[in-house]
């Protein structure tokens, strides 16, 4: 299928990527290239084929219950927040969310 600039703008919104009008065409072309490539897949009959999301079909492992609970790490908040653009009293600062 071919898509249009409107769909590209919508995808950019979903992906939270700032995309000026003049860039839409470039991303539209690249999306159409990949979708054209993906079109090849439609020639394969995949009726009743179970989709594979993990190469080993493994299941999510669960921790065993233990007496000391599930805490395996101590608190590293200060160290981890050192790489944040802006923090205050252990909180991440962002521009006002609600007016």
């Amino acid at each position, binding site marked *: 299928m071919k898509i249009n600039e409107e769909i590209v703008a919508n995808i950019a919104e979903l992906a939270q990527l700032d995309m000026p009008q003049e860039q839409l065409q470039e991303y539209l072309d690249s999306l159409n290239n990949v979708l054209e490539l993906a079109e090849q897949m439609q020639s*394969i009959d995949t009726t009743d*084929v179970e989709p594979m999301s993990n190469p*080993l079909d493994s299941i999510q492992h669960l921790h065993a219950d233990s007496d000391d609970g599930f805490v395996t790490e101590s608190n590293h908040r200060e160290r981890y927040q050192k790489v944040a653009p802006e923090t205050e009293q252990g909180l991440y600062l962002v521009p006002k969310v609600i007016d």
Partner: protein
Amino acid sequence: MKHAQSIKSILNALDKKDYSCRELVQHFLTRIQAQNDHLNAYITVCSESALKHADLMDQARSAGTAPPLAGLPIAHKDIFCTNGIKTTAGSRMLNNFIAPYDATVVDKMSTAGTISLGKTNMDEFAMGSSNENSFYGNVNNPWAAGTIPGGSSGGSAAAVAAGLCAASTGTDTGGSIRQPAAMCGVTGLKPTYGRVSRWGMIAYASSLDQAGPIARSAEDVAILLNVMAGHDPKDSTSLNEAVPDYTQALNRPIKSLKIGICPAHFRDGLDQQTEQAIQIAIKQFESAGATISEINLPMTKHAIPAYYIIAPAEASANLSRYDGVRFGHRCDQPQNISDLYKRSRAEGFGKEVKQRIMVGSFALSAGYYDAYYRKAQQIRRLIKNDFIAAFNKVDLIIGPTAPSPAFKMGEKSADQISMYLQDIYTITSNLAGLPAASIPVGFSNNMPVGLQIIGNYLDESKILNLAHQFQLMTDWHIQTPAETTP
């Protein structure tokens, strides 16, 4: 020639005190200083910490408390988090990111006594096959200036080939260890999915990503895999299976081995001299007593479209964490929260990364999910079934690693799809989760050619056995490029 020795010879020389760990590390640092401006294989060089660590290893050696690889100078792909050291994943997004912890791979390598000389260049977030997508500039292939080293672990492969480290780590999502190893004339292995922990390894496509070693020979790779492999409770997808000693099987005779060749790997688009080098290698395996037979992997040609839906889909989810709030790039003077997210991401990510995020977001969006993402996952199962059928007949599958040797910078960067086709032989093992290696088997137009060896699940020993036996018969793996600077 300390920098072109095998791991065994280096450890042996350190044992005999031919040189100290400090002298060895200093030797590599001097080479990096002389050559990295040109090669650009390293993004960050850790001279001070490397020398400090070398002194500790010298002390441990004198005290008799040295770990097995004490003093071995290595480099980590800049996708592995390294405590206190800048970790960029080749992106502007992480240009200011000092990782607050070590990846499990980094931790294991360090505990084994290896010394990290620095962090190697790579395609941004491992998305690329030529290293041309790095925010930190192109890497020169040590075999020819102006030529790509392959990608995405291009810096890691180039550093080994140029003798700027004894070995390195890489990651492989669609061929990112094997393809640059092939193009730089070194040996690289992508282990079985889950064999090596992904904890602390910056995620691209989580169901495909796997870390592995890049080194001068199969023997060196085996030594490193012994250290890297194993279950990690911090990675729920890591395999809880015993780790064999990968050096044990290296010397088995290959007489009884059944090797499969897939005709689909030798179709149009394969460079002629590459094919010749591969055919000669096949003859050599045959004369060493291995049985060669044809197998079929009919789904191979559909692997590219399936991969370029699945990998971007997973990437679009993984890369949503880069939002300018907790770490990484933040835009100047955000007007509101939405502006902060959108501009930080648009400025922090490069073009190829944004294109893949767009493809992934599209493939996962309502109305298109079944036609693209679900369909690709179904084809993924068919690809795995192909391999299961093939491995009922043969022990290993061999063929070319890449359709051509390294190409000139800029040659394919304008044509996205022809760049994607670079991965045609490598991505099937990622989709199926199988282990696969690349070893040097000759030259095409004076550039190295790699042979890929794919094995069944957890058959890394068998792959390395075949690779090692080939390297005992040939000298491709010990050839080195002419020094780029005196």
